[in-house]
């Protein structure tokens, strides 16, 4: 689905990503883990062309997208739910969803306006509210709903449940599991290691811009020292 090789990204003089290889298979759920400032968001932005990597390659479904405009990369079948949710202060909930609507790269329109509202009934109650007038949890639901309206094959969630109340978190995780069941691949960044161990098919841990672990949950569960060392549990 997505394959990044040897990505090096700099912010000015500081070298943030040190030759990262990262891939996601079709339908696969990958947890991207690591402490703050280790390069998780930078890796996502580098793959999407939001930040330009200095070297390395990114391919989506076999097609080289290195150096492409963000919008062109996204249209290869990716949806991005950024940290901070990316609400538009002058658009209503309804407009957030309608403006994003698009058939998938394979022409499918599985996710319609109606289906998104069925998935997030709370949004259906607030259709005429402005995006920025929603609670944090509702904003995250809207951001995910808006992403689904583009009928993606890969959903990228940066800080999926950050700053949300426990009950809302549970709702969000419930929806993410449901999305996974539909066969959409995902990359999830979150602080909640327990949920990620249970949910994701594969886990990638970043330390100072390098991949220090890339594998399934079994090893992480049986050898807790890996998580202790790299994430500090």
């Amino acid at each position, binding site marked *: 689905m997505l394959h990044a090789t040897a990505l090096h990204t700099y912010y000015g003089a500081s070298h943030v990503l040190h030759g990262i290889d990262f891939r996601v298979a079709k339908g696969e759920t990958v947890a991207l883990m690591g402490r703050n400032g280790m390069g998780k968001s930078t890796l996502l932005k580098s793959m*999407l062309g*939001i930040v330009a990597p200095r070297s390395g390659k990114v391919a989506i479904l076999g097609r080289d997208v290195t150096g492409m*405009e*963000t*919008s*062109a990369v*996204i*249209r290869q079948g*990716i*949806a*991005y739910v*950024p940290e901070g949710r*990316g*609400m*538009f*202060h*002058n*658009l209503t909930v309804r*407009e957030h969803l*309608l*403006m*994003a*609507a*698009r058939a998938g790269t394979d022409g499918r329109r599985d996710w319609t306006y109606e289906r998104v509202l069925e998935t997030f009934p709370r949004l259906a109650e607030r259709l005429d509210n402005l995006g920025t007038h929603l609670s944090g949890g509702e904003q995250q639901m809207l951001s995910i709903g*808006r*992403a689904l309206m*583009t009928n993606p094959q890969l959903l990228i969630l940066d800080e999926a449940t950050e700053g949300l109340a426990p009950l809302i978190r549970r709702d969000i995780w419930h929806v993410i599991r449901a999305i996974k069941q539909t066969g959409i691949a995902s990359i999830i960044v979150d602080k909640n290691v327990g949920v990620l161990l249970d949910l994701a098919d594969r886990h990638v841990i970043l330390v100072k811009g390098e991949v220090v672990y890339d594998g399934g949950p079994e090893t992480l569960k049986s050898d807790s020292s890996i998580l202790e060392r790299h994430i500090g549990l």
Partner: protein
Amino acid sequence: MDVWFFLIQLLNGVQYGLLLFLVASGLTLIFGIMGIINLAHGAFYMLGAYLAWWLAGLTGSLVAAVVLSLPLAALVGYVIEALLVRTLYKRDHLDQVLLTYGLILIFNEAQRILWGNDVHGIAMPTAVNWSVRLTETLSYPVYRVILSGICAALAVVMYVVIAKTRFGMWVRAGASNRDMVAALGINVKLLFGVVFAVGAALAGLAGAISTPISSVAPGMGDTVLILCFVVVVIGGVGSVKGAFLGAMLIGLADTFGKVFVPDFASFTVYGVMAAVLLWKPRGLFA
């Protein structure tokens, strides 16, 4: 004070406001969505007027001239965006002001080379060269009514496009958070190019349709540009609704200022701006 005289000034003010809105709406969208301070926006107004004057001479028809000058102004706008303005999005306002100021100079010089420095005018087409009689002594030119009608109709079209269509949602979303618009897979470059071209076309149209009532002269874009910046600041940057209200306020303030306080006529517009900004420092709809 004669009520009919007052009414005529009111109509003049509204008509001027509507015309200003055509120019200012593009300016506010370009400013609000792309973050570009486009000092050359008034040049599109001038371009529209000169194109209309030139084409009216060639075709002998004002309508044909206006209709032809519209796509030409849009094309010039699109090319300027693609070649020059596009390089400014990631730069600061000083670079933008420098480049677009340079564009004003180029536009003015091109106008001198192509059409000379003389002041021109277009004769009012005979079909609309009559007035609606209001009283024994007062009447109102029908062309100004038509002008207001065109501007008002376009304002309605713009409202519908911006408020109801997906394109309008993208434009508004772009004014709020353009990186997120790109992250949803929407081609922001193309969106910006289209908005810039539409803004140029609207300004050009305003210039073209005003040729029978005001002269086609060098520097005509500069006066309009300054008034349009006042309109944009009053309305709130990026708000088309604000631009509409701001244009009405400025159109009326300018017209009534010239009639009732002629000694302070050049001040009334800025007096209104100062009052609005004291009340709402970020503009009416920021």
